[in-house]
């Protein structure tokens, strides 16, 4: 091999080595650039998810009812029956509107007591949510909030009623302010573990609006003009009695016991009251 050929061969090898080195450098640059970019962006994404999660949680987490409960079922008219199977008397009907501040107070002060009495078999409870606040008597957004609350409560599965109703009252919008947005109503269902796409459709499509209207008409037919209205065996409790229950929830138990005794003595073979 001549000297010039050897020199040419060495130059070629050097050139080839430089070319390979340049390729390796480019490849290394690309890998380092892409991976470090992904790493930094991933950290940003994780932080963003955590921040969004924390801010969306805020104080709007659903409130679960964890106390004693009697079996719950939804009746054909949309009302909720909470009663032990063998209990036929007395029947306590609660007419309520989720936008009504007094109903919220009733739930806060007496709600758990009512549920516990039903769980002990001392009363049949029928919850009758309806839309008390209607246009044109009330200005928007009050009627819409009231209607959305009632619709969502009717969309919720019966066994989740205690927690969902409790949550609706807990986050009741201030009268005259917007609230019960679809997103909140759905998030609460998620919190309580009963969210389904069907529930979402029911809420966003106001699919129980017909039942809300029927309940509202029924309440009007029963001369219910305010909320909360409490009826024991079909008889409305006076304002004074309701106030007394507000002040002392245990008085409800005495009232119901008295009512059960008087019904039993008036009718030796009681039958279930028709709802």
């Amino acid at each position, binding site marked *: 091999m001549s000297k010039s050929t050897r020199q040419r061969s060495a130059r*070629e090898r050097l050139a080839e080595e430089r070319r390979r080195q340049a390729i390796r450098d480019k490849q290394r640059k690309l890998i380092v650039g892409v991976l470090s970019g992904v790493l930094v962006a991933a950290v940003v994404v994780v932080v963003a*998810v955590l921040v969004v999660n924390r801010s969306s949680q805020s104080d709007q987490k659903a409130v679960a009812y964890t106390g004693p409960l009697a079996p719950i079922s939804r009746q054909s008219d949309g009302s909720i029956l909470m009663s032990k199977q063998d209990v036929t008397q007395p029947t306590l009907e609660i007419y309520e509107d989720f936008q009504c501040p007094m109903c919220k107070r009733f739930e806060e002060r007496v709600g758990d007591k009512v549920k516990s009495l039903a769980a002990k078999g001392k009363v049949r409870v029928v919850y009758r949510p309806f839309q008390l606040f209607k246009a044109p008597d009330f200005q928007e957004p009050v009627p819409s909030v009231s209607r959305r609350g009632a619709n969502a409560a009717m969309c919720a599965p019966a066994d989740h009623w205690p927690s969902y109703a409790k949550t609706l009252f807990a986050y009741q919008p201030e009268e005259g302010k917007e609230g019960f947005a679809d997103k909140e109503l759905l998030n609460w269902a998620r919190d309580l573990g009963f969210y389904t796409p069907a529930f979402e459709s029911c809420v966003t499509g106001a699919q129980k609006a017909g039942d809300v209207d029927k309940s509202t008409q029924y309440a009007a037919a029963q001369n219910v003009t305010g909320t909360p209205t409490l009826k024991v065996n079909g008889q409305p409790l006076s304002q004074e009695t309701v106030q007394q229950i507000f002040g002392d929830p245990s008085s409800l138990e005495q009232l119901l016991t008295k009512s059960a005794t008087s019904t039993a003595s008036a009718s030796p073979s009681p039958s279930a009251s028709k709802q």
Partner: protein
Amino acid sequence: METSEAAPRVPKAGYTQPRWLSVVVGTLVLAGLAISSYLAVVHYNNDVVLVCSKSATIDCESVTTSKFSELAGVPLPVLGLLFFLALGVLNLPFAIRSSRPLLRWGRLACVVAGVLFVVYLVAAEIILGKICLWCTAIHVLTVLLFVLVLTGELRRIADSPQ
């Protein structure tokens, strides 16, 4: 003038990706499209049931209906569908042959975005304490596509004239 030594390599008409790489990428993209389509249909049609085993930690519905299931109001399955569609187009033979930076960087940007969505959803699953098997399948496909597209780009660099 020397023509045989240190001569610039003649630029090829276009980069040719190994066949196996094109086939694997194409298969993964099609699988991703199929899964994303299914999840999108389930999202919009309540009559279609999401087939998924359910246990304390494995629960597809809890994830696909969680507050993390939409980004700026767009359901994630739809974003997944767009991702796989875009990646499918960017991996068609004409796009692979092309050396246009827009297509090359677009392809890389696409898989990087995909990996970031995987990070987002995994973070969401950790927060929720639930794992969605369909989502996991999408995650695996996306990470594999990221590796394959990056591999393709490294091969392209090795193949390109210096």
